[in-house]
């Protein structure tokens, strides 16, 4: 994939009360931002499980946005602090796995911050675009010689033993 045509695929996990509504507001206000983020709604950023982020990356997402209400402004009192802690833990682990920090970003946006959310999307997309595709599933595809080696082994054994078609 050449850089000119690389359109990052990004999954955004957003809480029902603030960040999802910020995205709604960005829409109502016709604020334009890159179309790369596909938003998945959860009730609270506290629902966001690191597994979701890993799942998205493992399926080929180039980046992930985790968004919630500002700290201290959670609709569920303080559950977004749990999101903050999990994000810190996840970030630490992803760094060890070699995933660039810019690919997974934590964003706080209140329901009134349509512009801020749009800006955050713009930044995330620009950051990921600069890093290039992640293509995580491609990461565990083996070199071509693996297939050849198995085929030659199958052939060798088949010829010797005449067991396999």
């Amino acid at each position, binding site marked *: 994939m050449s850089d000119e045509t690389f359109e990052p695929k990004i999954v955004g996990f957003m809480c029902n009360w603030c960040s999802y509504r910020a995205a709604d507001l960005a829409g*109502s206000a016709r604020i334009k931002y890159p179309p790369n983020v596909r938003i998945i709604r959860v009730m609270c950023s506290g629902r966001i499980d690191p597994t979701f982020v890993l799942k998205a990356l493992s399926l080929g997402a180039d980046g992930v946005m985790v968004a919630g209400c500002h700290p201290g402004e959670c609709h569920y009192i303080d559950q977004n602090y749990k999101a903050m802690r999990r994000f810190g833990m996840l970030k630490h682990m992803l760094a060890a796995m070699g995933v660039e920090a810019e690919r997974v970003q934590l964003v706080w946006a209140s329901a009134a911050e349509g512009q801020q959310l749009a800006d955050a999307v713009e930044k995330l997309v620009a950051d990921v675009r600069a890093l290039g595709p992640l293509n995580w599933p491609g990461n565990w595809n083996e070199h071509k010689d693996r297939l050849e080696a198995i085929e030659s082994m199958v052939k060798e054994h088949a010829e010797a033993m005449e067991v396999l078609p």
Partner: protein
Amino acid sequence: MAERVGIYVCHCGSNIAGTVDVEEVARWAGQHIKDVVVSKDYKFMCSSLGQAMIEEDIKTKGLTRVVVAACSPHLHEKTFRRACANAGLNPYLCQMTNIREHVSWVCTDKAAGTEKAKALVSASAERVKYQRPLEPMYVDVNPATLVVGGGIAGLQAALELADAGHPVYLVEREPSIGGHMAQFDKTFPTLDCSACILTPKMSEAGQHENITLLTYSELEEVSGSVGGFTVKIRKKARYVDYDKCTGCGICSEKCPRKVIDTVFEAGIGERKAIYSPFPQAVPRIPVIDVDSCLYFTRGKCQVCSKVCPTNAIDYEQKDELIEVKVGNIILATGWKLFDCARMPQYGYGRLANVFTNLEFERLCNAAGPTNGKIVLRDGKTEPKSVAIIHCVGSRDVNYNEGCSAVCCMAALKLGHLVLEKTNAEVYSFYIDMRTNQKMYEEFYQRLLAEGMHFVRGKVAEVTDAARNPDEQGKLIVQCEDTLLGRQRRIPVDMVVLMSAMEPQADAKELGLKCGISCSMAGWYTERHPKLDPVATMTDGVFVAGVCQGAKDIPASVAQGAAAAARVQGMITKGRVMIEPIVATIDEEGCSGCRICNNLCPYNAIEFDEEKKVSRVIAALCKGCGTCVAACPAGVITGAHFNNQQIFAEIEGALWDAAAAKTEEETATQSVSA
């Protein structure tokens, strides 16, 4: 058995169809998404015809799941859930895809918009297959209502509800109800006296059998939810026994300690250390200001106690925390004045004869510190010329971007009062004259006829740096007159700053307690700016008056009444539906590790010491899902947002990104092939 999914893509006129090829999305979904048996596009899905189409398909085509790709679920989720229910499908088997706010309105390129819409539809379609039927839960509505704020909006709301026969708790931070309206002299455009129209309402509220007045009190904590809130209120110590005091006022009269009254008199008048803010205060029970009271600060005096005929003074009184149970809450907390010292170029605080509009209201008010005489800061000189500067701290990106809505009319009113009471020339410096309500423009015309001078332009500065003898000793208002197209310097004796209305300093904090948010400007966010202006995103919490946005008295009254009407509707209905989105713990799988026990702010998770398992109390659970994400054994399920559903949604959203996997899968098959 495979689900039978129906997909409905809305054009929303051209709102969606303008930047998303909706026909293509529907066609693609029908061909590429598994288990889709119907995929259609339609001009307006939310119309009765659109809904009927879905209902018809559910019945005739045996749909078991429905996806509606249209606007935000916050707008129409209920509509489509109802349509499904009408056709006998559990409403929670319907999923909305937001391709308007999240796609068509934010995209510029139609091809990109169409691709994004496909991904979102795919996500919903994969998710909806795993959705489970849910039964809504109902709670009874407590008929009592809490109204926070005793200004005109809150008063109106409280009286409407009380008159309808429902109990109301009216909480007010100051010693008396009345709010800002009690400070004003006249009201525009009719010029009737503010106190004359307000005080009857105040005393009505004070005497109403259904209203419990909680003045000098503040909201401490809110728990529970719509229908059944529990509210903790701090009744601050007045140091006066509420039951013994008759409100005779001798204590204030005899109190030797005078202080500047920065609240009611806006800093230009005085009050005593034991005081009732104004003569018509409701209740008439005074309070002791401990920061200035001689007894509290120096340990001696006690004059008030000695003169009180009913022994009502109680220096030992403590703050009291009370708890009330209500079904709904109306916030009508009003506003505060912009701090004009933040615009030093206008000289407030530096130049003596620069006043705020609130100070000037008190100056004009016959019950105010000057008995209604308009005089300079020296307390005696009548000004010969007065400049009224509009938009101070409002319509200014450096302070408040929005318009304060009332200042043009208030400036006209103050101008009229100056013309009426003095011989001064009056200059109004305005950016735009906004007089767009009933009888407002007529009032503007009246002031033009009365001889008030109007200069269109934003004032650059108010200075005492004179350039010629005429300016010597005056305040010079420097301004570009945009109608004349030139700079003007107008020397005056007195300047009145029409200061912006700003949200209360603790508006955000109070909003959080009640679970509602503020706009960027700091006003409470209504559920819908046009169609639902007094409800909020939190069921059972309503807003009225200026706390929702700057507005004048008639609009505040209308909102107060509107909020009361909404609450009455809830009370009459008797019960409200709450979403069955709650967590459940599989007790078989729970090993009692107790990770989740500390995570719930509503204490909805209890630990069974005997069985060594944790359990969710459904009635307390608000469905945030934090415990679901935290459970290390994965045995907590969040209804409507379970792992399976979200994983499927992620997979669907990335339907076009998973290509790299296929190569691997084909490679593993070489032996068995």
